[in-house]
């Protein structure tokens, strides 16, 4: 190559380092068809460096095809993709060094040991992570000498995440990484992803678990029918879907509705039975309770209903997400 190892690394970092203003991932008008089937119709989004970006959608929405195009596994029919300023097809050699991938449905040979697989993948990268540290962080430290075939589903998933991270990537693409895990293992995986992000890795997370997107992602693209139907923070999407939040309470004394409807935070007041139901935005609870208190009324049994991402999804796509217990894929 004619260059020393160090200078090559610096060159890669220079070329592939996302500047402060440059997004880590930028996808514009991506389109991919398989014969008559339009898997991805028109998908655009950009992911800032250090972000956990979720791609959420029902099975068959085009999530996996989108990331497969992004990592250069598939050639897009139209649109542009840039990862850290690199093209996944033209600059694929560089892309493979700076993007770590966890694919759906990729297994390892049954009779290789965990340590042997990790050592092999480690040898593929210029500046790999330490195997011991990595498997410690992933809770696989005791499994280094175990055959792949003896690992549980959760352990295999964690190994697959370890392999995605072993090259110290700048971007990690994780496709349905918690599918097939039990709830406890899933929570562990979420903590792990948050930890990876804290180390400065940008994460592109494909999921069909609402809770996962809600808990983990800085922003979420809702994909349905090969299109982005909404893109916002999880809270922003939820608010957009419901048009606000509602507070329910039992008043200690009668009061005039106008007391509340005059508040800027309140959009309407209903009285189903003895309860009062106030709909509005912003610091709704504080505004309602303080106003009532000033009028000598106490609000009892206060309940706050805020809609969640699931409501947003149903509202924006008109469908339920797939049953979230089984390992279905898109």
């Amino acid at each position, binding site marked *: 190559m004619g260059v020393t190892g160090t200078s090559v690394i610096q060159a890669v970092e220079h070329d592939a380092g996302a500047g402060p203003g440059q997004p880590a991932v930028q996808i514009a008008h991506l389109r991919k068809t398989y014969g008559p089937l339009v898997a991805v119709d028109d998908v655009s989004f950009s992911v800032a460096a250090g972000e956990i970006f979720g791609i959420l959608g029902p099975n068959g929405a085009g999530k996996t095809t989108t990331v497969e195009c992004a990592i250069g596994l598939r050639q897009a029919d139209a649109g542009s993709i840039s990862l850290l300023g690199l093209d996944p097809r033209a600059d694929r050699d560089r892309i493979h060094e700076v993007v770590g991938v966890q694919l759906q449905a990729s297994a390892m*040979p049954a009779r290789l040991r965990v340590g042997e697989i990790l050592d*092999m993948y480690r040898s593929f990268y210029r500046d790999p992570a330490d195997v011991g540290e990595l498997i410690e962080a992933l809770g696989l430290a005791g499994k280094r000498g175990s055959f792949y075939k003896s690992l549980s589903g959760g352990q295999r998933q964690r190994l697959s995440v370890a392999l995605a991270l072993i090259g110290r990537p700048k971007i990690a693409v994780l496709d349905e990484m918690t599918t097939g895990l039990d709830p406890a293992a899933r929570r562990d995986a979420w903590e792990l992803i948050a930890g990876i992000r804290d180390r400065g890795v940008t994460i592109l997370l494909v999921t069909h678990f609402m809770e996962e997107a809600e808990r983990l992602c800085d922003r979420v693209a809702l994909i349905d029918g090969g299109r982005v139907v909404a893109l916002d923070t999880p809270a922003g999407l939820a608010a957009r879907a419901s048009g606000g939040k509602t507070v329910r309470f039992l008043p200690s004394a009668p009061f005039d509705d106008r007391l509340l409807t005059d508040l800027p935070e309140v959009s309407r007041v209903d009285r189903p039975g003895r309860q009062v139901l106030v709909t509005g935005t912003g610091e709704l609870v504080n505004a309602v309770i303080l106003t009532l208190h000033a009028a000598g009324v106490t609000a009892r049994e206060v309940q706050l209903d805020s809609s969640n991402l699931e409501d947003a999804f149903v509202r924006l796509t008109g469908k339920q997400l797939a049953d979230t217990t089984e390992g279905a894929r898109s």
Partner: protein
Amino acid sequence: MNSLTMPATRSSALPAGRRRAAFWQIVLNEARLTWRRPIGLIGGVAIPLLLLIIFGLLPAFKQVPASFGGQSIFDAYVPILAAFGLAMLGMLGLPLPLVSYRELGVLRRLSTTPVPPSWVLAAQAVVQAFIAVASVVVIFVVAMAAFGAPAPKSPAGLLLSVAVSMAGLFAIGLLIAAVAKTSTAANVIGRLAFFPLMFFAGLWLPRALMPALLLDISNYTPLGAAVQAMQSSMQTGFPPTAPLLVLAAYAIVFGFLARRFFAWE
């Protein structure tokens, strides 16, 4: 499947030293897998060696029939059993792991690393070639040392014969890996091809006893040509060009077809 356009044979961007280290890491793991699931070692080394020992112990095999050109029946079986080992390794040992890696998604996963998935194929070929050479050496050495087979007249000719035989059989194995969608299919195709080819190699009827038509057919089969080339190197000297060309043609044609049809996903 064909929409997958990843370039399996691209060169890696890693520096040369790292590239070598990565390749040998893959070879090391392929060797471990071969050792841990020793189907290739059993079919490619143990079975032909066992047959050789049985034949060596049978008094009937010590006869030197007139039509054998001065060789004993046992001597005639030495290249046949060497071809047995090469065929097992080329047609089963090589393709089965590759097909199972494709099924498991191992090759697809590799294509997202700086290392191309074709390196697994190359590593597998290195491991199988190593076992193939070891198998041939063991068979010839045991035949000579324990059962009095004569030393080959042309060791260089024997070496060349083994090399082109390996090239031809490995190319056939790669085509099997290319067309078989599942490990089961690869296993069935490999075995179905193995037995008729072994027939033409002379396993049940040595070539010296074959009628003219059968011998003509045998000359154009990969194992018939392999036995012909190895036998000439043992008995008379440097092998004739015809069987070497036949084997080279198999290597080129089947290698081309394998390259054309091999899917990495």
